[in-house]
């Protein structure tokens, strides 16, 4: 197990001491969280620390070279022109420049390979892809919430980079109204409600699921190894369902910052910019509420960059990156740059939503770590080096922020490794071939 984790986890005494306080640990927070969360804000009701949360923001098509890398490294850096919009959050963010995706002689599947390395640390062979980093993290911090993770896409349909073992993709929710029903619909139990009566139907569903458990499990004996992995994934999904039922049968611990958002009207969820903009805003609000209400601890946002399209234009953002001429005077592609600015504004808006939910002295953003990644640093020529990466949030004090870190020539997977370790995934190394790394970005660790 990695040092950081060991250092903070190894003390068995701490665990025992923790449990001795009894109530402190009955909040539905895994032990791991409680330990790692030394700097977090404590819950007024119980004294237990609020758990850390994790998020990914995948925004394709990169930035313009020369317009985003800050001129100085370390703390106190100034955002370059394309990242200026992040100034209000500079002290809760990091900008990481210089890293690469390595192809190791494999063909470059443009706009695919980069994502695979960013999310899974490797270019998969065949269709059986490994789990993505957010899934690994969700398996550690998301096992006791109603939703192990929540995926949304802004104008990207049901596409998602959140993968589990056994070729299962956690599909994105493209519609805010559906996400609202899924989280805050009839099955939502308000943690702050005074009265609690378990629903008889929920209790019955739980018993019925137990009654057929062995019958289902039997199928494992009848299939080969590859299909076993796929069935394991099915059973792991069923466990989330069982977990949801068991949570619905208990009175949830109060979460003072939790408020239920107002109902969401149905919206159009295509890749047209006005629809995407509207939906991004609602998604941000819903995810902030879901995190504050303890419904999930992992959120994955996929900005459907490639297909995004301004009304009345013949081109999508993706086709513009390849086909729009560079403006001689400006030195960049103006319409592409419009899209980059538009997308960055969506990310800022998301951060604002998370930061607006106050929890004691901090905010939801303060106990989160969000990893921002992209597929190509410069989409016009499909470059795979000098990649922009950002982090946002302070992970309850585990993540140091306010820095520009330059890692020239290093594998981008160093960030994925660092984030997983920070969230308690027991990993020494991550990635494959040249994308494999054991070098944690220690500058980021508090």
């Amino acid at each position: 197990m990695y040092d950081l984790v060991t250092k903070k986890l190894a003390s068995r005494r701490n665990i025992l001491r923790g449990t001795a306080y009894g109530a402190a640990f009955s909040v539905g927070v895994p032990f791991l969280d409680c330990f790692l969360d030394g700097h977090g804000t404590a819950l007024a009701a119980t004294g237990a620390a609020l758990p850390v949360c994790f998020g990914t923001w995948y925004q394709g098509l990169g930035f313009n070279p020369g317009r985003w890398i800050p001129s100085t490294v370390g703390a106190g850096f100034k955002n370059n022109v394309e990242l200026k919009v992040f100034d209000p959050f500079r002290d809760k963010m990091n900008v990481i420049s210089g890293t690469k995706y390595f192809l190791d002689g494999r063909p470059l599947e443009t706009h695919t390979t980069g994502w695979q390395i960013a999310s899974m640390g490797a270019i998969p062979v065949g269709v059986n892809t490994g789990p993505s980093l957010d899934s690994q993290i969700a398996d550690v911090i998301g096992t006791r919430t109603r939703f192990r993770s929540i995926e949304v896409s802004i104008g990207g349909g049901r596409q998602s980079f959140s993968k589990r073992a056994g070729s299962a993709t956690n599909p994105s929710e493209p519609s805010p109204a559906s996400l609202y029903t899924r989280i805050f619909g009839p099955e939502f139990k308000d943690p702050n409600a005074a009265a609690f009566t378990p629903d008889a139907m929920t209790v019955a569903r739980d018993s019925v699921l137990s009654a057929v458990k062995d019958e289902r499990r039997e199928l494992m004996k009848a299939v080969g190894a590859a299909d076993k992995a796929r069935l394991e994934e099915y059973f792991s999904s069923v466990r989330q369902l069982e977990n949801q039922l068991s949570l619905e049968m208990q009175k949830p611990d109060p979460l003072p910052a939790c408020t239920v958002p107002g109902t969401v009207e149905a919206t159009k969820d295509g890749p047209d910019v006005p629809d995407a903009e509207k939906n991004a805003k609602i998604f941000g609000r819903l995810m902030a509420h879901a995190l504050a209400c303890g419904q999930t601890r992992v959120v994955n946002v996929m900005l459907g960059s490639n297909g995004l399209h301004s009304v009345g234009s013949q081109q999508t953002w993706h086709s513009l990156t390849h086909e729009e001429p560079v403006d001689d005077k400006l030195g960049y592609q103006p319409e592409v740059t419009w899209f980059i600015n538009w997308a960055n504004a969506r990310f800022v808006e998301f951060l604002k939503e998370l930061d607006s939910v106050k929890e004691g002295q901090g905010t939801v953003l303060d106990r989160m770590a969000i990893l921002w990644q992209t597929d190509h640093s410069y989409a016009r020529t499909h470059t795979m080096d000098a990649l922009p990466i950002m982090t946002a949030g302070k992970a309850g004090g585990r993540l140091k922020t306010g820095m520009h870190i330059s890692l020239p020539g290093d594998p981008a997977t160093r960030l994925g490794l660092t984030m997983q370790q920070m969230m308690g995934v027991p990993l020494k190394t991550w990635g494959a071939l040249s994308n494999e790394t054991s070098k944690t970005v220690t500058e980021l660790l508090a």
Partner: protein
Amino acid sequence: MRSFLSRTAAMALVFAAAGGLLACSADTSKQTASAPAAKTTAVAKDAVYAPRQLTMRRLSGEQYQNVIHDVFGPTIELGGRFEPDLRVNGLLAVGSGDVSITAAGIEQYDLMARRIASQIVDEKRRDMMLRCKPANVAAADDACAAQVMARVGRILYRRPLTQTELQAYVTAANVGAVKTKSFYSGLSLSLAAMLSSPKFLFRTETAEPDPDHAGGWRLDAYSKAQQLSFFLWNSGPDQLLLDAAESGKLNTKKGVAEQVERMIASPRLEEGVRAFFIDDFGFDQFETLTKDTTLFPKFSAQAAADAQEQTLRTVVDLLIKNKGDYRDIFTTKKTFITQELGAIYKIPVVDTLPNGAPDTWQAYQFPADDPRGGILTQVAFTALHSPPGRGSPTLRGKALREVLLCQKVPAPPANVKFDIVQDTNNPLYKTARDRLNAHATNPVCAGCHKIIDPIGLALENFDGAGAYRTTEQGARIDTSGSLDGVNFTTAAELGKAVHDNPNTPSCLVSRLSAYALGRPVQEAAWLEDLNKRFAAYGYQVPALMREIAESDNFFAVKPVETKAADAAAVPAKEAR
């Protein structure tokens, strides 16, 4: 259940009658003249023997829906959303053997299952659906629960339940009844649990030693039944097919042939043929297709739905109703049209229904000299392979090569500038052809564009939403080109060139067999054999489906690892 059983029995009679009629009215010259020839050209069976791995395929959304509607009637509402499918080797059917079910997916399956189950036990339906009544509606009832679960289980699991399985579902119904103080609520929860069981959601297969191939394995009779029904009907086996499995008839060539004949003669074959072409043509991509409504105001959501339906109707009418030649789908002037499509095709469609009524379909034939003809000129093809704001000769050419001719087009290389293709203001390059020609002066790009562009440019008379045009920015559009050495000047002639291309039928053989088996078929001898048979039958698709369904390879599986083989073959057998 009564309704289902009586419905099936009634349908069986209809099928039998229809089968007879179809057999009589079939084009006998083709059937009798070429069928024996095809049989006699058959290669020695061992030369084409191509066993595959056992697969575990996830039901597609359509298959799930078809099964539910077959068992419980078409008025049952599903009201959920399925997990996205995975395209592998160009087909979702192949990807279905690679996918699993995620947490978000199981939530949806669970929700759908509970909705379906509650409709079945609903007061209005229960007497019709269920054959028994509990002694006391407020308590558990073993006997009635067992009767229902055994019947439903045989259809959903596509084989009889084992004693252990049945007991689990009876127990589930009982605990549910006790907790809710209602027999029907308990039964409903037990039904819902079966509907989200992996044994229903995944099509697993069981192998047994194959007496016809020493040392080889084949699917057991129930696995054969499901393989047949999902291929030919895109749904689970009906009672007659399960009966044939139970009686052992499916273990004989004659028994398989009888069932295949019955299934091919059934009107449900249309469902199977449609399912293949929806997968083959990639119509699932319509789900995420958008058109800029300011540029293409006529391309509404309804028009997109109608466009797919138009192509499917064209294909089904030609291939099933008229027992036509597959290659004619690229040249036929016959199609079907709605008012919504009429607006794009600029054809006046008179519809006498009141405003707001669903579009009605009318048969339509393009005049002989019309530039339209064949599915390549239909909106579903030209619009699907175009970005939101314009047409794309490259995307269309690539789709034609890859989907219809089975030729792989490599991905574009890195570090390429595309500026010139975009710059529509350049007075030198007014049309897509001008711009692509300029772009293809780059030797890195030229190789691929040479094989994609000429065929894509032939469809430039159709804009990004499929409407006809003759000029782009005032310049006349030149649609001439060549396909594998055959020159053409119009889209109609391109259709003829595709019709005559030898890759056209062999590509269908390759994709249809991969679709049937859930894996790409690479055994050259078997493919060659199927190609010969397809040609001998005058390229009739149902005949090709029959050849695949009746071939040994449809059921032949590889000897699995010893332990898995034992597990696969033995317990299921014993339990039954």
